[in-house]
């Protein structure tokens, strides 16, 4: 039911229970409503691939940053304030007209959480993990990512020692774009390398 009809809505028992718990914690002075708002915001919106998109957009607009990013991913990403235990040992690989990079974790599900948020379900799926190494071009095609025949595909296997982020080529026709505009064009799939 839409928010417009909020005043007509019957509150379910479970919803009432959640509200009661929240009210109780707030009444006790333990938490405020806005504390809870902040956490919901953070988990719902800010933990997606937005941080990674900002890193990519910065690399597209600042050649010196891009150089540092490709030389030492962890350090350059930390310049933007992103990092943490699951974002250590970041290696950034640049896709170009000659090579397309794609990332997998064949052993488990190593994934750079601080820049890409929660991993999509398929990233952990056995078919993706086993097949992308053997037949990357076929897997990418099935995922809707057409890599031209003359572009080489390189597959990077993540581990606890090295987590990869793909720097996609800057899209053509985005010349006047600001860094924020550019970041909005970057998706998680681009940074895993299953989109181009």
């Amino acid at each position, binding site marked *: 039911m839409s928010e417009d009809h909020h005043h007509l809505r019957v509150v379910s028992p479970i919803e009432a*229970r959640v*509200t009661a*718990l929240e009210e109780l914690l707030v009444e006790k002075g333990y938490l405020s409503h806005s504390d809870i708002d902040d956490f*919901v915001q953070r988990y719902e919106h800010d*933990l997606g691939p937005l941080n990674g998109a900002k890193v990519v957009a910065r690399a597209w607009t600042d050649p010196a940053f891009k150089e540092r990013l490709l030389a030492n991913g962890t350090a350059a990403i930390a310049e933007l304030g992103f990092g943490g235990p*699951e974002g250590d040992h970041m290696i950034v690989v640049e896709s170009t007209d000659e090579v397309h990079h794609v990332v997998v974790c064949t052993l488990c599900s190593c994934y750079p959480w601080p820049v890409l948020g929660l991993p999509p379900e398929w990233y952990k799926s056995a078919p993706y993990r086993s097949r992308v190494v053997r037949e990357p071009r076929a897997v990418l095609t099935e995922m809707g990512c057409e890599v031209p025949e003359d572009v080489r595909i390189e597959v990077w296997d993540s581990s606890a020692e090295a987590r990869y982020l793909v720097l996609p080529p800057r899209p053509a026709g985005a010349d006047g774009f600001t860094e924020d505009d550019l970041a909005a064009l970057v998706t*998680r799939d681009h940074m895993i390398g299953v989109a181009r």
Partner: protein
Amino acid sequence: MSTADLDIDGAVAPPRRNGELIFDAPWQGRAFGICVAVLDREGLGWGDFRPHLVAAIAAEPGADYYGAFTAALDSFLADLGLTTPA
């Protein structure tokens, strides 16, 4: 806690769509928000909440995720002594 703690597999993993958390109704987001805010406040991690969630899911197999989550939150807050009246 950090997202690194969150389960991403199995019955205890929060529902997601292409990697992003899904809340079908605002109260589900509130329940999740209360949980992570309390974990943060208490210096605890997802692993401290997980046993409550596992028990709630086991108590009512097939119930929806945030139904079980709310029952788990109830028992978790009670264990922490946070649900005694102010």
